[in-house]
């Protein structure tokens, strides 16, 4: 067995980023994922040619990274023949993943009630923007809506300032991680009980969950939390600018042993026993003074000079990287956090790896994403369709 999900069949009826990322998590772990696409254009991300100003240059890595190793089958569920083919796939599937809106799923006859009747062992995974209930249940959700709706975005900006524009897909991928956890909880339960079920999370829910320490604290204190200004942040938990206008993140909290080590590392041994900065509480009290000392100090060397100095120390710190620096980062290389794929027509490209280590059943970055409808005929034949019925479906437009 090479991946933990070998032999598991997933029907993927997803679009954009949230749903596709969920089933890609499963594909990386060995599941056999069949992506159902509309014959009219297919997955919208197939058309991405630029991401926040960065061109894809012929390798649409955004699409590829969440469709790799899947099979593509075109089915237009508005046709009865296509719907019946979908039902046949569902009957023999273990998991169904979708992030279409709930009303659309009902209209197309692929809602939980319908599919779970057909296959009571099915784990039906649904990702939404806002939850299955409530006044916002039918509202679209997209990338940043969970971060905005949960209060997380506010926490990234100083009071009154414009919150930053959110990076693409980050919100979807975080929610997808949580839903993948839910899928495996349900699979584990099924293994022990024989029963499938519905598992769901939303962008809103996932963001409240990953920010729950702020949510719970703020709601209880009835006091909001904003980003702090540079001077207000703790001296040792802050981002400092370097001589070349780059940044170093220092992330030491309470640990007083790290303070001593830090003083030695950055060459301020004379402050080691300064009572203003002695125990954690003092550092916090005199944060402004410490920040201004460190502001001046970090400006005296470039980021790479600081990296060379700090590399010898094990207190928590990090360079603030640019993406293009990751391939030469020895830490990234040593852990296979980037892997090289070699695709016909694309050549070699470095892409993010599985990034979960499993000692006995490791996952793997799968082969190239499929062409639209690449596996339609193969999968239908496998379901027992003959060529005549496949051709009839093509002619009516139910498949491509």
């Amino acid at each position: 067995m090479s991946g933990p999900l070998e032999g598991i069949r997933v029907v993927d009826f997803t679009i954009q980023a949230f749903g596709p990322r969920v089933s890609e998590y499963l594909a990386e772990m060995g599941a056999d994922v069949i992506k159902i696409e509309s014959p009219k254009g297919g997955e919208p991300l197939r058309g991405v040619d630029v991401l926040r100003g960065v061109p894809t240059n012929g390798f649409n890595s955004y699409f590829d990274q969440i469709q790799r190793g899947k099979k593509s089958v075109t089915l237009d569920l508005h046709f009865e023949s296509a719907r019946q083919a979908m039902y046949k796939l569902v009957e023999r599937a273990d998991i169904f993943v979708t992030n279409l809106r709930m009303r659309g799923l009902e209209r197309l006859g692929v809602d939980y009630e319908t599919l779970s009747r057909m296959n009571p062992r099915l784990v039906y995974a649904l990702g939404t923007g806002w939850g299955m209930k409530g006044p916002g249940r039918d509202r679209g959700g997209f990338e940043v809506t969970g971060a905005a709706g949960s209060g997380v975005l506010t926490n990234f900006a100083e009071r009154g300032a414009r919150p930053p524009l959110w990076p693409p897909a980050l919100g979807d991928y975080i929610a997808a991680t949580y839903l993948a956890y839910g899928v495996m909880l349900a699979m584990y339960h099924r293994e022990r009980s024989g029963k499938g079920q519905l598992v769901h999370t939303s962008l809103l829910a996932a963001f409240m969950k990953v920010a729950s320490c702020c949510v719970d604290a703020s709601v209880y204190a009835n006091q909001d939390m904003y980003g702090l200004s540079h001077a207000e942040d703790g001296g040792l938990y802050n981002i400092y600018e370097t001589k070349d206008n780059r940044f170093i993140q220092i992330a030491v909290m309470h640990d007083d042993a790290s303070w001593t080590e830090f003083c030695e590392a950055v060459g301020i041994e004379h402050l080691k026993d300064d009572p203003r900065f002695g125990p954690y509480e003092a550092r916090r009290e005199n944060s402004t003074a410490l920040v201004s000392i460190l502001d001046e100090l970090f400006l005296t060397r470039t980021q790479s000079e600081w990296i060379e100095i700090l590399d010898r120390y094990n207190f928590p710190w990090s360079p603030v990287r640019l993406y293009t620096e990751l391939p030469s980062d020895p830490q990234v290389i040593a852990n296979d956090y980037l892997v090289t794929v070699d695709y016909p027509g694309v050549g070699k490209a470095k892409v993010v790896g599985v990034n979960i280590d499993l000692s006995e059943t490791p996952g793997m970055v799968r082969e190239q994403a499929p062409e639209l409808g690449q596996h339609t005929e193969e999968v239908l034949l496998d379901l027992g369709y003959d060529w005549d019925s496949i051709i009839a479906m093509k002619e009516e437009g139910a498949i491509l």
Partner: protein
Amino acid sequence: MSMPLEGVRVLDLTVYAFGPRTSEYLAEMGAEVIKIENAQTGEPLRWTSSLREVPVGSFKAYFEQTHRGKKSMAIDLHHEEARQALYRLVETSDVFVTNLRLGGLRRLGMDYDTLSGINPRLVYAIGTGWGLKGPARDRGAFEATGFAASALVTALTQPGSRPPLCPPAFGDYTAATLLAYGIMLALFHRERSGEGQLVHASLLGTSMKVISCCVDTCLYAGENMFGQGHEADGAFYSMYQTKDDRWIQLCVVQDYRSWEEFCEAIGLEALVDDARFNSPEARKENNAALVAILDEKFLGKTQSEWIEILDKYHFPWAPVRNFTELANDPQVLENDYLVTIDDPEAGKVQVVGPALDMSKTPGKVGSKAPELGQHTEEILLEVGYTWEQIIAMKDQGAIL
């Protein structure tokens, strides 16, 4: 079976946020989680007095939400007797979760090789800052280091500006989510094969995973991605300031099919047929002009007035919330994203719920976090220790 992880025993040798959040995910789903705490100091989060500038008060939200429903054993692993007791517990456990540093785990005899030798069915889950290998493997890490090192935070920052400080625990909880998924993969595999294994995720690896669409695109293009200004990403995909200095996030992609619906929603019907904006191409061309019109329009009403208007529409948008507003958000309440618990000291408190819907085996918010060492004796008795032995261990300081 009422919860998916009923009957699963988890040993939790964790500190701060990453590890504790991982095992709390399991506790919410019915696992029995035994937290091993340092007999002298206990979990550091027990002593958190404020989070950013929000005071903790009599309800330690941060500690509670990572320790609810767990049992606590106070042990000093430097004593051989204490170590032997933990080994006995390992024999009866399904999952071991830790985020201590690798060197420390080896010194304490709690590394993977030792524990899997004792119990080959054990799923050993480890969270690190930087990975199991590489020059930084022994470096500490905390919350924001993964976001800095993966360049995620760079995508939130305009070129040359200081990156924002990430909200507390956000990076840890995101990584905990991926590790929880990994644990369920390993438990599923164990159910089918009988073998345990090591499962690992790091702050760095997870950050790269959730921002992989930017990483892969940038590496292939050889170009970096930064945060962008208000006008940069399209008029429909930006944040607008309201009359009361709050924000509304629009998440409508540029080719949104219902331009008419959007114009009607915000009261700009006059623009429907305006040649500058009536096609996706025209809107892209005249983006700056459209942003300026929308800037002015949104300043005309308060955020809550806009919410009332936009609530009727299903295109993706979101109010940029503050955390305290979640307590009254009907969408949050109807979906049980916040649930009310009755705390023995603080009374009724609203906290983030499991936020993962499961139709047959829902999770739940556990009971109050344990006192330090509350269950030490109970658990030692259960694994066969006599009261004499327990008292002897107390006398030598091996347990509290």
